[in-house]
């Protein structure tokens, strides 16, 4: 027992002061894309050709990137000879509408909270049931990590629960395989209304690398209505956390609360 207490002293206090302090992201962090079509040379289609998921589109002179399909793999940024496509360090990627994931210039975070009624219901206590529907265990791991003491999801009143009956919504990862679609639907049906659905990761938004496979349904919103999209392959834990807090409109409040407490 005494050893466990001594260990506790050595391990120290590790909960990061987010959102009072911005997250410390790795040097090579790959966040939101930034596009500058004015740099494009005429007839150049190099970025479009290398993109594994056809996330980039060129309509006339308008170059657009669908973050919902993007794997943040750097194929386009490496292929672009003029620096028209770059990845920034912006980690706040979540959006409530699918269309808001399409970037055609510099990226601005597009957070938007839930409607007032649901926000009042869930704002202080949100219980989520996680369903992996073909996820590769990367998104699952980075959702799981939010429960560790570094992120301490519980301090925001958000908790992953074991049963859909106890949940206010689903957090879905994976492209929704045919083999999981019935189980996903049944889990959704078991959640009492009103309920929300959060799609985490490129697979859950549009199918990820598996777009177009006959074995998958190209994302959650072909099966269930989605209230929040969190892009990334997988999204950084802070991208997921930012999305959740933005949805509940808790970010500003928590940030100022934390500042006062410090």
């Amino acid at each position, binding site marked *: 027992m005494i*050893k*466990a207490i001594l*260990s*506790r002293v*050595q*391990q120290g206090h590790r909960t990061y002061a987010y959102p009072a302090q911005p997250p410390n992201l*790795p*040097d*090579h*962090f*790959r966040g939101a894309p930034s596009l500058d079509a004015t740099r494009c040379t005429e007839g150049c289609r190099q970025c479009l050709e*290398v*993109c*594994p*998921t056809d996330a980039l589109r060129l309509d006339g002179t308008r170059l657009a990137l669908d973050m919902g399909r993007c*794997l*943040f*793999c*750097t194929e386009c940024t490496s292929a672009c000879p003029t620096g028209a496509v770059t990845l920034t360090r912006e980690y706040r990627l979540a959006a409530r509408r699918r269309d808001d994931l399409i970037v055609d210039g510099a990226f601005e975070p597009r957070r938007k909270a839930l409607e007032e009624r649901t926000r009042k219901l869930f704002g202080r206590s949100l219980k989520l049931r996680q*369903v*992996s*529907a*073909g*996820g*590769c*265990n*990367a*998104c*699952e*791991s*980075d*959702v*799981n*990590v939010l*429960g*560790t*003491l*570094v992120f301490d999801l519980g301090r925001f009143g958000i908790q*992953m629960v*074991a*049963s*859909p009956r106890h949940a206010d919504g689903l957090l879905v990862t*994976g*492209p929704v*395989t*045919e*083999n*999981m679609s*019935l*189980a996903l639907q049944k*889990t959704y049906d078991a959640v009492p209304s009103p309920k929300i659905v959060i799609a985490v990761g490129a*697979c859950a938004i549009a199918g*990820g*690398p*598996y777009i177009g*496979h006959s*074995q998958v349904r190209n994302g959650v919103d072909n099966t269930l209505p989605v209230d929040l999209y969190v892009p990334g*392959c*997988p999204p*950084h834990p802070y991208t997921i956390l930012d999305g959740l807090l933005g949805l509940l409109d808790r970010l500003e409040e928590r940030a100022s609360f934390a500042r006062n407490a410090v």
Partner: protein
Amino acid sequence: MNQEQPDLLRASEPRQPGASAALPVRAARNGQAVLLADIPSLDIEDFRQGVIRASLQHRRVAALFGAGEAEGVRLYSVVAGDGEGQLYLASSLVKGDAYPSMVDECPQIHLFERELFEQWGIRPEGHPWLKPVRFGDSRRTGNANASNSIGVMDFYQVDGEEVHEVAVGPVHAGVIEPGHFRFQCHGEEVLHLEISLGYQHRGIEQAMLANPPKRALPYMETVAGDTTIGHASAYCQLTEALGQSSVSARAYALRAIALELERLANHVGGLGALANDVGYLPTASFCGRLRGDFLNLTAALCGSRFGRGLIRPGGVGFDVRADECSKLLERLDTTQRDVKNAVNLLWEANSVQARFEGTGTLTQQQAEQLGLVGVVARACGLERDIRHDFPAGFFRLAQIPVSVAQSGDVFARAYVRWLEIQRSYAFVREQIQMLPVGTVRRACNPLLPNRLCVSLVEGWRGEICHAAITDAEGRLSSYKIVDPSFHNWMGLAMALRNQQISDFPLCNKSFDLSYCGHDL
């Protein structure tokens, strides 16, 4: 310890070297491209004997897969001789819809035969357990074996007084992947566990044949997302061998560092989860954080916590500067200090040891017969480690001792992880300090035509086996992936026999297998 001699061993009786004529095989190294014409094409009886004899010679079947041909389905066997450093390749064309099963004599291929049946509709006659593997992965038009809806099949059932059935999944209580488990119980005691998977099936192997292979790397990086480095390395090793492309020593070193960081993160996380499953919260809590610290070291190399974008054909996608190396070392040392502190609590807590010891025991004989690999096999005393037996890439230059334990229980599987954590840490530390200089990525050549290549990597779970065949134009015509989980799920089912059903989460975590890696 289970001392009974299962009847599976009867096949070993006629074990006299040279009793029958040697069967032709083509020997190959890990990551050596072989001309298809050099692989002996045997008749099915000789092919069967080759596979059956392998298991009697203490060799393993690393892969057994089919490739469609005009006249039927060609079976390929990849037999691994641990300690010999050789892979033995053979093939046989099955023209009809059936062949005599090999399972009776060679139980470790039970799942391969089921897979062949599901994919190609060729029936292994006499297979005692011919059930779906993934519920839908047919590769032959007119395949009579139209798959059922997922989970719809005859489960093994036990009848009797006070016998009851517990069905769990596909959606589980935790944040984990889906799978279905059926327990036949007598009271608390599990008589039999049947594991039925396939929920994660995404069709990767078939999609790998697309031309151009734009998505090949994203597929490889998400075969099992927690093994991004392992699977991407196996793929790159394969394409480099098939194109006879060279890779710099620096790139090999960075790949090896990334592979060991992946092992460190997952093993530390695994020990934390084991602590959680026995209700020992200090280690569970500390290790949850420390796992993330190792993931962040991988992120320091390439920006992604799982190593996405790091392993690339011809080398690695990111170089590391000298000043970054010293920062990495510093972070590695402080993390390891805390890991040591957190994990040692486990070995000193009697309550933890009481739950670990003697739980979910497999004998060495069972492990060998089932063809188990990785941590699980080493915890049964089997010295199987690709880094040691089939070294490729940087492991030809720098070795890591094989970590083995003998007791085959949850304790052994935990302790092997702890040994590997210490050895991987020492390895990463040493290699970061003496990184070879040079370029990190070279251009790759196109793939050579009409070749077969097998690539093995010791991922954190165990042996990752990729096998590819190229056609006359040098395009991939067959791509086979065997995740270590494919071999090991049956081990979990066997370990649960005569255990308390309440020990299932602990046993399951001690195997820590991949669902999507199995379902692909």
